[in-house]
């Protein structure tokens, strides 16, 4: 089927326009609102909408300009025949006429039916929704504006039957699943889903799930039953074990008891023996000790007796000797006493002599000291007088000026200098001598003595009374003055020195000096005398002499008392003489004393020696006697204690016997004890006690266990663990088998379902292959040689379209995830492919109308997709592209028809008035030049509220901007995207409501009418102030 031309009359914007379509490719261009879509819609309605349509659909077609009913005429070819369908949509009076060129005609309903038949569609029918239903016809071929990006699979499903039939016939005898196929497959899928969850686990409420649950439950029950059963048997085992343990313990006890008794008996015997042993041991010890004691005492008595006898005999000679020595000693003592008395008398004599002599010497000393003291006293007196004289001299000296020879010499020198100076002055100066004067002669007020030379050493006024005044001017220049100054100075110096010394003159100085020297010499003499006298030590010497004198006096006084009858000597000589005589007497007496002392010492020594000897001898005798006494005492005691000899002897014999008997008994007892091995017996007893206790404990435990087990075993008879276990086992087994069955069954269901899925997939691949290949072919035009389409078909329904682009590593991108532009392009590819498949029942051709179908595609892609469109055209499809940018399709090599609104002079037209150029259609074909084809006496028209709103916004904003604005500025302030802006701008430009400005980037300004308008039209409703902007439409038809 191929559309040749479309003629539209009184249809919305169009008054009467005819567009010829190229058999292959036509681009219908023109600005927005020039009626492109309207044209496409009209053609579609001519083909599919009943002419007698009423209601809103019908009303929407009515021309904006009164003057006739909407009419559409479409010429087309189908089945190698040419047809013309003419429909007038006038409601109930609507008319349809189908005529085969050069052949039959059909009218109205028949025409509708025949047309549907030719087009291969069902009758759309009338009534409510007829318009919408009709619009769905050939929706896969008619891409309405704004629907280009819809998923084409839906369209494909709408054409499914036809499409499948075509695909089966073209897909290499591809077969389709039957309804039964689908039903059975579905039933198994449902059964699978009723058995399994999405995650593959069995559903709880499925047979498999219940079987699994039952299996689990019965397994748990089995475990429980087995536990119960095992517990029973364990208890029985425990009972038996406890019984055995009890018996074992009893047996042990039976064996242990006699052993223990035997040990106990032996231990008792040991005890007895040990007691005996102790007793016997004590007895033996006592007997032995007593015997020994008595025996010892007996021995001792005998020994003592012997001892005493021996000692007595030995002492007798010692006693005699002691008495003899005693006599000797007494005699020697008496001799010593005599010698001592002699010596004492001699000593006394010597002492007396010594005292006398000492006294005589003391007198001698006293006399000497008296003489010395007198001597020193005299010398001291001389010193005193000398010192007194010297003091007088010093006082004299102190009265004299302190002139010494040096000072005097200095004075002499000063005087000499003065003399020299005066001499020099005299030699130089003039001298005046008054020889005689009646009146006083004054020189410088000083009265000159008569006859005295008055030295004039300087200018001097000489007054002679009042008579004359003379000035004497001595010669010699300055030397005179110098000389006079020298004199003065030397005089002063001399005088000063004299003053200091308190001297009147140099002579006085000489006298004073002489006095001083004389006195000083006298002082020096005095000093020498004092020194000779030893003046410095004289006082000490006097004191010392005094002391010595006193001492000597004391000595004499003291000694005088010792020698009462001593005749004191008169002087020193007599004293010396006395002392000497007494010395000799003393020597004699001392010699006598020493001799007597020797005699005495000898006698004393002998006496002492004899005494010592006597004492020693006596001591020895005393010692011997004491020992004998002691022995005697001991002997007495022993005899009293142990009896006399006879009694003692009897006692001894008895004790010996006692001791011997006791020792023998002890030995026997010990032998018996050793034989019993008491240490081992004790260990045995401990061991056996342990063993018995252990056995008792075991027995007790066993008894207890026995009781517990017996208690447990006393069944209440309500349950039989053995039967319970058997039942549980059987149930578990049965559940396992059932589960296995269900699993097998579920597996079978899954297997069938999977196989159905698999086969369905294969079938769908086979069926869709021709379509896939065609879609891919178109996609390759767009996306390169690798692009592939993937089409899913499930249960004969198209369920998905994917695009694979290996070059971009996209394995299969679902259609819905493609970008807006890509959606349009891929959908177009799919439609083309589908049309291609379907076209085979339409003489190999079907028209495809793309109304603004690539709005989201970028210019570059629009260029590329022309390859795809061209490929479709070359494959026999009729391509019709409606675009407001026909230039974009320049490369398509299509016929281009431009619908153009004709500018209308301002205020020239109004509703109901035809445009001046309204004329009969004029057609030109096959020309490459643009030709004005038709001018419609129609006003432009805004199709919808949205568009009108935007117009209003555009104009209002432009007005706000002062009626003129750059495109960029205006678009930014409107906040629109470029496409919208350009679209609305183009529309307004076309309407002449705005005019293009100059400058780069472009600008627009309001048309004068819009400048004048106070407010923009609200929604572009018919009948509003549109009247001022109506524009006729022209059509350019050209073949590029």
């Amino acid at each position: 089927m191929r559309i040749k031309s479309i003629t539209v009359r009184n249809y919305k914007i169009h008054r009467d326009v005819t567009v010829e379509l190229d058999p292959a490719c036509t681009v219908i261009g023109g600005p927005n609102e020039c009626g492109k879509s309207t044209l496409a819609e009209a053609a579609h309605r001519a083909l599919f909408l009943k002419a007698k349509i009423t209601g809103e659909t019908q009303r929407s077609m009515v021309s904006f300009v009164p003057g006739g009913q909407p009419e559409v005429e479409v010429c087309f070819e189908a089945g190698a025949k040419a047809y013309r369908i003419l429909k007038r949509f006038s409601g109930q009076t609507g008319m349809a006429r189908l005529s085969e060129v050069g052949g039959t005609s059909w009218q109205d309903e028949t025409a509708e039916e025949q047309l549907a038949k030719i087009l291969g569609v069902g009758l759309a029918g009338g009534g409510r929704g007829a318009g919408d239903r009709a619009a769905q016809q050939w929706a896969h071929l008619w891409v309405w504006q704004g629907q280009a990006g819809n998923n084409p699979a839906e369209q494909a499903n709408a054409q499914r039957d036809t499409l499948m039939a075509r695909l089966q016939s073209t897909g290499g005898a591809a077969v389709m699943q039957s309804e039964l196929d689908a039903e059975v497959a579905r039933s198994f899928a449902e059964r699978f889903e009723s058995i399994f969850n999405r995650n593959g686990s069995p559903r709880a409420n499925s047979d498999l799930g219940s079987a699994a649950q039952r299996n689990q439950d019965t397994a748990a029950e089995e475990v429980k039953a087995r536990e119960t059963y095992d517990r029973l048997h364990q208890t029985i085992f425990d009972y038996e074990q406890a019984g055995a343990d009890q018996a074992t313990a009893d047996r042990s006890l039976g064996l242990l008891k006699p052993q223990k008794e035997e040990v106990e008996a032996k231990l008792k015997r040991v005890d007895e023996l040990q007691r005996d042993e102790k007793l016997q041991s004590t007895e033996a010890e006592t007997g032995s000790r007593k015997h020994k004691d008595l025996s010892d005492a007996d021995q001792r008595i005998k020994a003592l007796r012997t001892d005493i006898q021996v000692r007595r005999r030995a002492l007798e000679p010692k006693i005699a000797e002691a008495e003899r020595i005693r006599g000797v000693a007494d005699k020697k003592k008496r001799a010593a006493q005599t010698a001592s008395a002699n010596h004492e008398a001699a000593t006394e004599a010597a002492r007396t002599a010594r005292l006398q002599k000492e006294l005589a010497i003391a007198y001698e000393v006293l006399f000497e000291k008296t003489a010395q003291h007198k001597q020193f006293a005299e010398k001291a007196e001389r010193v005193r007088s000398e010192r007194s004289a010297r003091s007088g001299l010093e006082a004299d000296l102190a009265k004299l000026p302190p002139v010494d020879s040096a000072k005097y010499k200095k004075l002499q020198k000063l005087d000499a200098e003065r003399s020299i100076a005066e001499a020099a002055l005299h030699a130089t100066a003039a001298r005046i001598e008054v020889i005689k004067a009646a009146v006083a002669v004054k020189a410088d007020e000083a009265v000159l003595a008569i006859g005295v030379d008055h030295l004039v050493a300087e200018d001097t006024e000489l007054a002679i009374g009042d008579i004359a005044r003379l000035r004497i001017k001595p010669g010699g220049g300055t030397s005179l003055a110098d000389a006079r100054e020298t004199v003065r100075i030397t005089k002063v110096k001399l005088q000063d020195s004299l003053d200091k010394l308190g001297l009147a003159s140099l002579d006085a100085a000489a006298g004073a000096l002489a006095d001083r020297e004389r006195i000083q010499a006298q002082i020096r003499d005095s000093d020498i005398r004092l020194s000779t006298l030893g003046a410095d030590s004289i006082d000490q010497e006097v004191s010392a002499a005094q002391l010595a004198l006193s001492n000597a006096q004391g000595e004499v006084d003291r000694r005088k008392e010792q020698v009462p009858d001593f005749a004191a000597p008169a002087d020193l000589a007599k004293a010396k003489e006395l002392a000497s005589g007494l010395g000799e007497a003393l020597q004699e007496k001392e010699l006598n004393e020493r001799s007597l002392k020797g005699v005495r010492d000898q006698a004393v020594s002998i006496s002492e020696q004899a005494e010592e000897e006597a004492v020693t001898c006596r001591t020895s005798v005393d010692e011997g006697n004491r020992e004998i006494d002691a022995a005697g005492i001991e002997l007495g005691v022993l005899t009293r204690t142990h009896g006399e000899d006879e009694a003692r002897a009897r006692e001894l014999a008895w004790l010996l016997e006692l001791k011997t008997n006791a020792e023998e008994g002890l030995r026997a007892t010990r032998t018996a004890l050793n034989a019993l091995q008491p240490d081992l017996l004790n260990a045995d007893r401990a061991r056996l006690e342990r063993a018995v206790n252990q056995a008792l404990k075991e027995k007790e435990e066993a008894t207890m266990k026995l009781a517990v087990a017996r208690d447990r075993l006393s069944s209440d008879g309500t349950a039989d663990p053995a039967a319970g276990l058997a039942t549980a086992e059987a149930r578990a087994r049965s559940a396992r088998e059932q589960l296995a069955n269900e699993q097998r069954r579920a597996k079978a269901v899954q297997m069938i379902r999977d196989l159905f899925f698999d086969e369905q997939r294969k079938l769908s691949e086979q069926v869709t292959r021709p379509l896939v290949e065609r879609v891919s072919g178109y996609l390759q035009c767009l996306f390169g040689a690798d692009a592939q389409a993937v089409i899913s078909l499930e249960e004969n329904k198209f369920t998905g379209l994917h695009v694979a682009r290996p070059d971009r590593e996209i394995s299969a991108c679902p259609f819905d995830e493609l970008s807006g532009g890509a959606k349009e392009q891929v959908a177009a590819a799919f439609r083309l492919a589908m049309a291609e498949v379907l076209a085979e029942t339409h003489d190999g051709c079907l028209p495809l109308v793309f109304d603004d179908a690539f709005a989201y595609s970028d210019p570059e892609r629009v260029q590329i997709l022309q390859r795809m469109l061209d490929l479709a055209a070359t494959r026999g499809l009729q391509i019709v592209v409606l675009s407001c940018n026909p230039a974009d399709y320049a490369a398509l090599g299509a016929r281009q028809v431009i619908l153009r609104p004709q500018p209308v002079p301002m205020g020239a037209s109004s509703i109901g008035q035809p445009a001046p150029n309204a004329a009969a259609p004029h057609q030109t074909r096959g020309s490459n030049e643009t030709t004005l084809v038709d001018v419609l006496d129609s006003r432009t028209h805004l199709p919808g509220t949205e568009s009108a709103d935007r117009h209003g916004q555009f104009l209002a904003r432009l007005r706000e901007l002062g009626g003129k604005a750059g495109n960029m500025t205006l678009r930014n302030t409107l906040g629109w995207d470029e496409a919208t802006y350009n679209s609305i701008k183009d529309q307004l430009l076309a309407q002449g409501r705005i005019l293009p400005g100059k400058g780069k980037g472009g600008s627009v300004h309001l048309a004068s009418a819009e400048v004048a308008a106070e407010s923009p039209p609200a929604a572009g409703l018919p009948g509003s102030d549109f009247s001022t902007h109506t524009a006729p439409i022209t059509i350019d038809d050209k073949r590029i």
Partner: protein
Amino acid sequence: MSIKFIHTADWQQGKPFAGVDDDQKRALLQQERLNVLDRIGEVARSHKAEFVLVAGDLFDSPSVTKYFVSGACSAIGRMGVPVLAIPGNHDHGGPGSVWEQRFFQSEARQLAPNLQVLLKPELVELDRAVVLPCPLLRRHESSDPTSWLRACPDLSRYGDKARVVLAHGSVQGFGAGAADDEDSGAGVPNLIDLSRLPEADMDYLALGDWHGTKQVGHKAWYAGTPELDRFVKGGDHDPGNVLVVSAERGGLPTVQPVRTCRFGWHELVHSFAADADLTQLEASLNSLTGARAGQDLLRLDLRGSLSIQASVRLESLLETWRARLLRLKLSNETVIAPSEAEIQALTQRASDPLISRVAARLVELAAGNAEDAAAAQMALRELHAATLQH
């Protein structure tokens, strides 16, 4: 002096029949074990037996529940003759045994004064016989329970009273053993060495443990269980009787088995070579049980292969038999091997390409030996069913 008595054993009262899923059926099986006691009483009366000997395993468990204690005591009481029993391995004496339980003792006193449980290996003198009991006092006696009889006690003072040994355990080559899942309690047999017993001094050995009736010596018999409690294996096995024994001092006993069992325990192995064999199976089953329901148990081993349709029919057949039988113990190793026609019907459906393809792949999978094969076979059956349903 001849004496007649009943020798029975292995009553196994209170056996759980755990393998039977249906509670009601299980109760029936348990109840029948009590019911058979009345039939034994009947045999005793009709044969004028002077007493009944139970050679062990009167109860199935040493901890049997009260119901079976009461039931058994009541039935024993009704027998009207002395009943002498020894504990066997299932109801062994000793600690925790049923014999020690107060309830049993009380019930025995009240309901079965004629019952004498011989818990000691001590001679029991009756009016006209002496009984030499060999009770099992624990589940597994390590020593021969009859060993006390080897050096035979001096029995001369009992004159011509028949001497009857009462024992429970296995003799060489015979014993209960672990027959099947119904006897999970069995284990190592308690071995009895008959050869070591002074045969001349004994007049009859009443043995228990082996559930079939079986003579194992000149004077030694297993009575077997009076009512079957398990599927038997192979031949030489004749359970479901009691023995009417006539014995006398120094003579050989006369033994007459009398059938007492009611329920049929059947075994059938059937191999399918063709679908037609299914009909044969049906016939076999019918011949086994006739028109009875609720009285038979069947162990059925199925092998071979069936078509899908036949296997579906088999399923429905088995359902029927499951209802009729007290128990169907099925071991079904039948392979579903779709027939050519079935395969064709599934795989060559011109109108349903998908089903055809899936079926073809399943046929391929089912032919293998892998784990998947069984699932694939089942899947084929499911798919087959689905194509019929939709």
